């Protein structure tokens, strides 16, 4: 009985430690993924806005919609997204966004990671 309780206790501790490590790992991974996805999407969107003969982006809202489409394919990690568009100029190529991904830990608590990226066409 005594041994049983000890095993159970150790298992609980091991679980708590692994959950903590997992949550730290989760945040770090998510940040990396978000950084990469947003940077790539912003750059691709600005480039697309200035591409010769392009028909997809004819307004600032088109440009934002384009960015969302690109981001949806670039981002790997799952979670809700908030996009704050700080600046957009489809004519001369500017997109400045702050993207925040909201996610849930295993214990149900909510976490978030953010990135701000701005790209211009020189």
């Amino acid at each position, binding site marked *: 009985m005594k041994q049983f309780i000890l095993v159970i206790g150790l298992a609980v501790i091991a679980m708590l430690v692994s959950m903590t490590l997992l949550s730290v790992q989760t945040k770090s991974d998510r940040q990396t993924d978000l950084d990469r996805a947003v940077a790539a999407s912003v750059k691709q969107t600005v480039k697309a806005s200035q591409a010769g003969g392009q028909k997809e982006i004819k307004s600032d809202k088109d440009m*934002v919609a384009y960015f969302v489409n690109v981001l949806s394919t670039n981002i790997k990690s799952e979670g809700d997204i*908030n996009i704050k*568009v700080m600046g957009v100029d489809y004519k001369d190529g500017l997109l400045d966004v702050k993207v925040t991904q909201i996610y849930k830990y295993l214990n149900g608590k909510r976490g978030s990671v953010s990135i701000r990226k701005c790209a211009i066409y020189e």
Partner: protein
Amino acid sequence: MKKILLIVFFVLGISLSFSVKVKAAVDGSGSGTNPYIVKSEDDLRWAVSKAVSNGWTYIVLENDVTISNTLKISKGKIDIRARGKDRSINKSIYWTDRVNDVNAPAKMIKVENTAELVLGSAGNVLTINGFKEKLRDRENNDVLCIEASAKATLGEKSVVKDCRNMKMNDESAPIRVYGYLNVYGEIKNCEGLNGGAIKCIGGYVNLDKNAFIHDCYSATEGGAIYLKNKGTLYMEPGSVISDNRSFEEGGGIFCTYESEARIFGGIIENNNSGKSAGGVFSGYGSTLILGRSNSAPIIKNNISKSFGGAIRCNGGSVDGGGKTIINNCEIVGNTATSYGGGISVGGSNGKYESSLSINQLNMHSNKADYGGGLHIESVVKGTNGSFIEIKNTGIYNNTSISGAGIFNQAPIDLIKTSIKSNTASNKGGGIYNYSGAITKMFSGSINENVAKLGGGIYQAGTLQLGEVGFINTSNEVYLPANHHIDIIKKMEKGSGLLALIETEIKAPGTIVVNVNYPGGDGESELYYVGTGDSEKNGDNVTKKFKTTDNIVLRPGAKVEGILNSKYIVLSKKYEISYISNSLDAVLNMPKDQIGFHYEKSTLSSNALIREGFIFDVSKSWNSAASGYGKVYQRGGSIVVKSNLKLYAIWNEIPISKLTMQTRDRYYYVGQKIVLNKKEVTSKVEVKNDAGTNVTYEVVVTSIENNSGKVIAEGYDIKVEDYLSTDKSGIYVLHVKSSSYRGDVSVTGEFKVYVLDARDNKVEVRFISEEFIETVAPWSVWKEEKYDELSKSLSRDDNGIYNLDLTKEDLNEAKKRVKSASYKISAAVVKREKRRLFYTG
């Protein structure tokens, strides 16, 4: 016998018939209802001779009368008036008459004993005409002389004109008063040797309502009136003295030898003196009183060729002095060529004291070389003590070379007095406080005055402040060498500057304020908020005094060499800077300190910590970065004499090896970046084998161009002299780093690329607020749309659009893109836009 009787009867008959003839020519009984009716000089003399001793005798003129010899009024009270039309009593113009005697001309009218004469009290105008122009070549005498105990009145229907008395070696004036003279009428165009119209010798002259003395001239003093030997003048509201002139002092009035002028009202204007006092001169022990509580004289537009445009009081070249009391008076627009455009107050020179008090004086727009408004000589005291009180007074808009408001040489006490908007071209716009003078000020204001030096006060004497006295910040107090401000009573003003100070001597240690009352000290009178120590600690302080050139003021008690708690002195603020002398982070670095000229400061005793080094206490702090300068002990006390830079000196913990990691650097043509050592070596990392996180300086030792040619070589090359973003190029930089001891070093190299961005097809780049200046010069974001970019980068709010997408939204978008074979077409964008912006 028969013959004798015949002759006697003949003579008696003649006499009787003459008597009956005269008597028969004058009608009336001399009473008020039945006056004597006079048509000739003889009638007049007869009527006067019939005056009763104990009552009034009334005479009316029905003709002009010419006086050939003195008409004596010796008894009774006689009232002479004009009737029917205006009449004159004329002075004879015949040289054979007694009044024009070439050797001893007789007086025209003389009132003597206890007799009383009234001329022109009612009826038509009665003129006394002296015909001075016709008699200019003759010696002449008084037109009217009132002996002691006698009395005369020039009624409001009387005019005295064209009278002249220039009798030499006599006290000559057209009207001479030893007794009592009342004036209600007009005196004009008269001339005298001492007094153009009236000379009063020990008698009384009363200028009452409607009295009007004008256009008279004195060959010496007193253009209108000359008072002497305790003579007294009363001037009441409604009387006017104007347009008179004197060759010497007192264009209007001259008051001398213990006489008294009580000018309670009226106007004294446009008078002119050849020497002092355009309006009124008072001196030689005389008393001058101006105004009373319910009436104020106006003294305006008078001109003096010397002292006192309006008034020279307490004057006198030999027996100068007297008493002047100003109760209520307006002095405006007067001019003096030397001192005191408004008033010049003379000092005592022995026989008589000179005293003065001023209350409710309104003095403005006067002009003089010195003391545009008021000039007070030395050796003048107050009427109630040693200080001259100047109370409830306004002195404004006066002009001068120096001392436009007041040129002061005496002790004065300014009480609730305003000195404003006076202009001096040189010194002392408000006050020139002359050497030896004392100006005390516990209340009142000095503001908006202008001068080259000392807009408010040129302080060359003693300036005493206390209670709520202050000099407005628009008006500096100028302190010549060795002069200061005395605070003789605790200052009670709660805020604002007490004085803006300008000093001739700017050297630190110069005393500017002396706190001179028991228990007072310079420190408490310098600060509203703070203390000498708190100012040194860098705390905010609020001071009561300031200098025009922002020289710092400090309590004298703190200053070595002065150490006097009573003083406030000029000082100088210094910085004691602590320099870590390191590229590394240093813990416990002390904050820079403030020090003041010749004051003690205690240096920081902080123990400094730097990784890989030990703080060398035998050399630190040190005036030289090398450690070979002057040593200042940690926590030591020093007397600060200049700005001080103190370097920490370090001993490096020994190492045996350094390693270096370099990275190539990339720049674009036209980038606004200076390619200096800091920029190009910013990615070079040097580490030691001791594992301590020390930052080592990296120096560039040579630069090669792309073809391997050395374009610069040396120790610590100034990179920006050889590299720039003006044109494209590739450079190889050789760098070196050494331990602080110099015994271990490491070298390395890296390339610097300056690329033509368009050639390298740089199109889209990331940008942040920090690097906004690195935008390529050809980009629209560099100039044309710079503001838009800058605005976007500096935003930190919810943005232009704030979009929330669930993971399902994202998956849906992803599916759509996927179904379009990962081509984001216009249709895909359109759908997404509709979903993002037009739903919900």
